[in-house]
C-alpha cells in the first residue's frame, strides 16, 4: 500500500518524462482493463444523457410529426409542421434576425475580449489584476438581471441617457436602435468570460518565444498578431463555437426586455422566443417542437461544419 499513501506527492521530472514518451505502452495497458468497469463509471452520466438529451430530442421529433387541432384532435401530419415552419414568415424573420445579430455581436464581443486579454497579458500591475476581475464580473450576473439593469439604464423614465441628452435622448430599444441596444447587453454579459479564456491561453505560452522574437527585432504589435493570436487560435475557435451556439438560441434578453420595448420586440423576434410563445401562450406544442427541433438541427449542422473546417486549429474534433 506504500504507493497509495505517497500518491499525491509530486513525482520526479523523470517520471513525468515517462508519461510523455510512453504513450504506446499506456494504450496497450489500457486495453487490458476490464471493459465493464469503464461502463460502470460512465453509467450515471449515460442515464441522464439518455433521459434529458436523447429523450427530449427524439420526443421533439415525434411531437413535431403531429398536429393538434381543437376540433380534429392529435393527427399524424408527417413533415407538414416543417414545411409550415419554413414558409412561416414569423419563423423565417426570427432566423434572419439571429443570423444578422450573430454577424454583428460575435465580432463585437470577440474583439473586446481579445483586445482586453492582450492588454491584460502585457501588464502585471495591480490595476491590471483589478481590471481583469471587473471585466469578468458580468459573467457572474444572471442574464435576466443584466437585461433588467440595462433596461433601467435605457429607460426614458429614470435612466441616465435622458439626463445626458435631454429630450432628444435616444431610446436604445426603439425599432431603429434595437439591434445596437441588444448588442450592447450581450457584449457586456459575455465579453469578460471570453476574455478570461483567451487570457488563460495567453498565459500558457512560453515567454521565451517573445524573448526570441524581440531579439529578432519584432515590435509589440507584431508579437501580438504573429505569435500570440496564432498560438491561441484553438481558444478562439472554442469561443467562436460557444458564441455561435449561444447567439442562435438568443432568448433571455429579448424575452425580458419585451414588455418595456414599446412593441419593438415582438413575440417572434427570435426562433426561441417564438417557440416559447407558441407553446406557452397558444399551447401549440407540436408546432413549437418542430421549431425547436429545426433550430437545434440547424445549429448543430452549422457548428459541425465550422468545426470540421477549422479542425486543424481547434483540436476539438480530434
Amino acid at each position: 500500500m506504500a504507493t497509495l499513501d505517497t500518491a499525491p506527492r509530486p513525482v520526479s521530472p523523470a517520471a513525468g518524462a515517462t508519461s510523455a514518451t510512453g504513450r504506446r505502452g499506456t494504450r496497450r495497458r489500457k486495453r487490458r482493463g476490464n471493459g465493464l468497469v469503464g461502463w460502470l463509471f460512465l453509467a450515471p452520466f449515460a442515464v441522464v444523457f439518455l433521459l434529458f438529451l436523447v429523450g427530449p430530442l427524439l420526443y421533439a421529433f415525434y411531437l413535431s410529426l403531429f398536429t393538434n387541432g381543437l376540433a380534429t384532435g392529435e393527427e399524424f401530419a408527417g413533415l407538414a409542421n416543417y414545411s409550415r415552419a419554413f414558409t412561416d414568415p414569423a419563423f423565417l424573420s426570427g432566423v434572419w434576425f439571429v443570423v444578422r445579430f450573430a454577424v454583428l455581436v460575435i465580432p463585437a464581443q470577440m474583439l473586446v475580449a481579445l483586445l482586453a486579454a492582450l492588454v491584460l497579458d502585457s501588464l502585471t500591475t495591480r490595476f491590471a489584476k483589478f481590471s481583469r476581475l471587473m471585466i469578468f464580473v458580468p459573467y457572474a450576473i444572471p442574464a435576466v438581471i443584466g437585461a433588467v439593469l440595462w433596461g433601467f439604464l435605457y429607460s426614458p423614465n429614470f435612466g441616465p441617457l435622458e439626463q445626458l441628452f435631454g429630450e432628444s435622448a435616444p431610446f436604445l430599444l426603439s425599432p431603429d436602435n434595437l439591434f445596437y441596444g441588444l448588442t450592447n447587453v450581450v457584449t457586456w454579459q459575455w465579453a469578460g468570460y471570453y476574455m478570461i479564456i483567451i487570457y488563460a491561453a495567453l498565459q500558457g505560452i512560453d515567454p521565451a518565444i517573445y524573448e526570441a522574437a524581440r531579439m529578432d527585432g519584432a515590435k509589440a504589435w507584431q508579437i501580438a498578431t504573429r505569435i500570440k493570436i496564432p498560438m491561441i487560435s484553438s481558444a478562439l475557435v472554442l469561443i467562436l463555437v460557444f458564441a455561435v451556439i449561444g447567439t442562435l438560441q438568443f432568448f433571455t434578453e429579448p424575452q425580458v426586455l419585451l414588455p418595456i420595448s414599446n412593441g419593438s420586440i415582438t413575440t417572434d423576434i427570435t426562433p426561441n422566443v417564438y417557440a416559447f410563445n407558441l407553446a406557452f401562450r397558444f399551447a401549440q406544442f407540436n408546432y413549437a417542437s418542430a421549431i425547436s427541433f429545426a433550430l437545434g438541427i440547424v445549429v448543430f449542422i452549422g457548428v459541425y461544419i465550422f468545426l470540421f473546417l477549422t479542425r486543424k486549429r481547434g483540436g476539438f474534433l480530434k
Partner: protein
Amino acid sequence: MSVLSSPVRADDAVHALREGRRARRPRRRRTGSHLFLAFLVLYFVLPLWFLIVASTKSPGGLFNSPNGALWFGEEFALFDNLSTLFTYNDGIYLRWLGNSLLYAFGGGIGATVLAVLAGYAFAKFDFPGRRISFALLLGAVMVPMTALVIPTFVMLSEVELTNTAWAVILPSMLSPFGVYLMRVYTADGVPDELLDAARMDGAGEFRTFFQVALPLMRPAIVTVLLLSVVGTWNNYFLPLAVLSDSELFPITVGINLWQGLAGANNGGGVSLYTLIVVGSLVSIIPLIAAFLGLQRYWQGGLSIGSLK
C-alpha cells in the same frame, strides 16, 4: 500542455511561470494600456454602479433624483428597501433565493459528480463503445440546450414532474461540456503509471479512483462545479417553462415576474421598481463573492478546454 501532464499542482506551475515572466519583463509605464483598461472597467461596472446607487434611493427618488441616475440621492433608504424586500408578499423573495440555491447546488453538484465519473471513464478505460460514446458526447456539446426545453417540459408533464423542484434539478445535471473538460484534464493530469501502481499493489478499481485519481482531479472538479452551479443559477428558460407556481420560482424568474407586474403598475401600493433594484443587488452578491473567493481555481481551470 506540460503544466497539466505532471501531478504537480497546475496553479503552482502557472504561478512559477508568471513569476519568471515578471522578472524578465522591462518595467515601463504603459499609460495607453492603462487608459484603455480604465475605460473598459468603467463600461463593465456601469450597470453595477447604477444598481448600488439605485438601491439606496427611496421609491420616489428612483424616478426623480436631484443628482441624476448615476449618483446618490439626498436620502439613504437602503435599509428601508431591504426590509421591504424581505417582507413583501410574506417574504417571497427569500423563498426565491432559497430555491435558486437549492437548484444551483442540486443541479451543479449532480452535474459535477456525473462529469467526474464519466470523464475518468473516457480518459482511463478502454471499454466497448468508447469511441462512439465520445463522438456522441462531442455532438451533444453542440446541441443548443434551449432546443430541449419545450420537449423536456412536455415529457416531464407526462410523468407529472412539472412544477416540482426535480423539473429544474434533473435536466440541469446534464453537462456534456463538463464531461469533456474532465476528460481532457484527467487524460494528462492523472498519470496512468500511478493508477497501475495502485492496482498492482492490490487496490480495487474504486479504491484507485477515490484515493489516487480523485485528489489529482481537484482543480478541474472545482472548475466544473463552479461552471455548472453558475449555469443553473443563471438559468431562466428552463425554470420559466417547467414551473408555474411562484413559490417554486428561482430568483431569475421571480425578478422577471416583478418586472412584468411593475410595468402594469400591479404592486399593490409597494414600488416594485425598488424591489427589483434591491432584489437584483442582493441576488448577485453570492456569485460574485464565490468568484472572488475561488479565483485561483477557476482562472487556471477555464483554460482546460482550449489548451491542447
